[in-house]
């Protein structure tokens, strides 16, 4: 557990290492809900705007403010191994008495924590600034709002696990990024499937989706870890 924590804190330190880096990141992620609210405000000011559409619009915005920051997670996951291969830092890491699965888990935890944290920050900002900026109460039931927030980790886990598996197979950062775009294709496929089938968001459907996501992530993780032999990782650094 200590190795996982050490690896994770180092990865997070790389992302939020300095105050300037952290503020830049939060500003970047914070722009999304602020811009969304500005657009909603402009929409609401239009005389022909159908107010009945507001809850759906807010729900969709809330969903995307939770999804888009996961890009950071995916970026971290894709590059975390490739950057170690390129710089050779993986060699002293592998020479230490640590399990490769712990290295992987540490990197995964960091990528998930960063993405989920930023996603919740972004969603929190949308929720918190909604009333002050639009002068009206939050239009979505709180239970649905919380469900949407709780869905972020469920979505992030398989996505980040997949990105990390694909990214770690590359020796170079550029290839790792290219590999990780395949994960986006999976997201796109799922999105299209949802748009096509339009499944009702009933508790059994949501629960099945959550379990499916977690199971998918776990399977990816298990497959990935079987691929990461110490020698395999070392060979990519040469």
């Amino acid at each position, binding site marked *: 557990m*200590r*190795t996982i924590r*050490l690896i994770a*804190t*180092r990865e997070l*330190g*790389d992302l939020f*290492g300095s105050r300037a880096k952290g503020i830049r990141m939060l500003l970047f992620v914070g722009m999304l809900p602020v811009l969304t609210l500005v657009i909603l405000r402009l929409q609401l000011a239009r005389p022909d705007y159908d107010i009945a559409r507001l809850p759906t619009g807010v729900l969709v915005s809330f969903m995307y403010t939770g999804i888009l920051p996961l890009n950071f997670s995916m970026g971290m996951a894709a590059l975390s191994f490739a950057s170690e291969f390129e*710089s*050779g*830092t993986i*060699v*002293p*890491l*592998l*020479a*230490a*008495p*640590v399990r490769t699965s712990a290295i992987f888990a540490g990197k995964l935890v960091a990528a998930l924590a960063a993405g989920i944290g930023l996603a919740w920050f972004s969603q929190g900002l949308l929720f918190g600034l909604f009333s002050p900026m639009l002068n009206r109460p939050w239009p979505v039931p709180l239970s649905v709002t919380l469900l949407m927030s709780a869905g972020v980790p469920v979505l992030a886990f398989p996505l980040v696990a997949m990105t990390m598996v694909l990214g770690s197979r590359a020796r170079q950062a550029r290839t790792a990024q290219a590999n990780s775009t395949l994960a986006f294709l999976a997201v796109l496929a799922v999105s299209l499937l949802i748009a096509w089938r339009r499944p009702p968001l009933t508790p059994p459907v949501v629960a099945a989706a959550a379990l499916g996501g977690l199971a998918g992530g776990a399977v990816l993780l298990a497959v990935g870890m079987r691929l990461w032999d*110490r*020698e395999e990782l*070392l060979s990519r650094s040469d």
Partner: protein
Amino acid sequence: MDGVAAQSLSRRFGARVAVDQVDLHVRPGEILALLGPNGAGKTTTVRMVAALLRPSGGTCRVNGYDVVAQADQVRQITGLMTDVPALYGDMALRAYLIWFAGLYGIAETAARVQADALIDQFGLAAWNAAPLATLSRGTQQKVALARSLLHDPHVLLLDEPTASLDVEATLGLREVFRTLKESGRAIVLCTHNLAEAEKVADSVAILINGRIAHQQRLRADGTPRTYRLRLASAAPIDLSLLQTVPWLERGSVCWRGPGVIEYATRVPEEANPRVAAALVGHGAGLVELAPGRESLEEIYLRKLQEAGHAHHQTHRH
């Protein structure tokens, strides 16, 4: 046995044999220099000793631990320094060392103490809070060496540690290697710098095409050393005149060609001037007095030539 003991160590990558039947023995307090051109198998050998690569054949034990069956124990007592510092550039020096000590299971407080001790030992205190990327290459290599010593390893594996360092930094690191040796660590030093090997190592092994082409001790204290004297004339002289010279090994004085005398002694600083004086006193002109054996460089070049390697891969500092 303490230290490193490898027998018939081999490693294949597919059809390519990178290391072939290598025997190595390094005792505590000794430095073995592993010489060889690029691609000779030095790094692969060191990685097998460090339990990073599994041998395809043979055995290797580090302080008695098998590198395959007891890999974690081997990693726990082995320090590896690579040719590139391989540091996280955004981390501060002290924080990095403390963080890395954690990977070896060292508790936070002990890690701080150990990091501070190494920072003092290597004169790195001025850069304590500096991001590692801002340090010079020589200083980064010192940090890498400090990192490999955090867990107080019994065996140190140094893979081209002075590659791409300037002369001053190289000399500084060599001094550190000597100190580490004196502290009782068994050290394997991979290099293609012959001068470095001669200056710091107790023994050398020349690795060519994955095989040990030559192995010798450099500092066999107490064993006789051979010297050759070249005379101005090839006319034979009576060698019995040298029997009166003390410190010469009994029966070691002989002719090694026209005008070339060879002898062995354990105390050359006493014997050599007396041999020269004895010969000059009998009217023999002295042209040269030199170690009788081939120099390491000559051996290295000959072995490379035999293996069909180009000479330009060797360099001396």
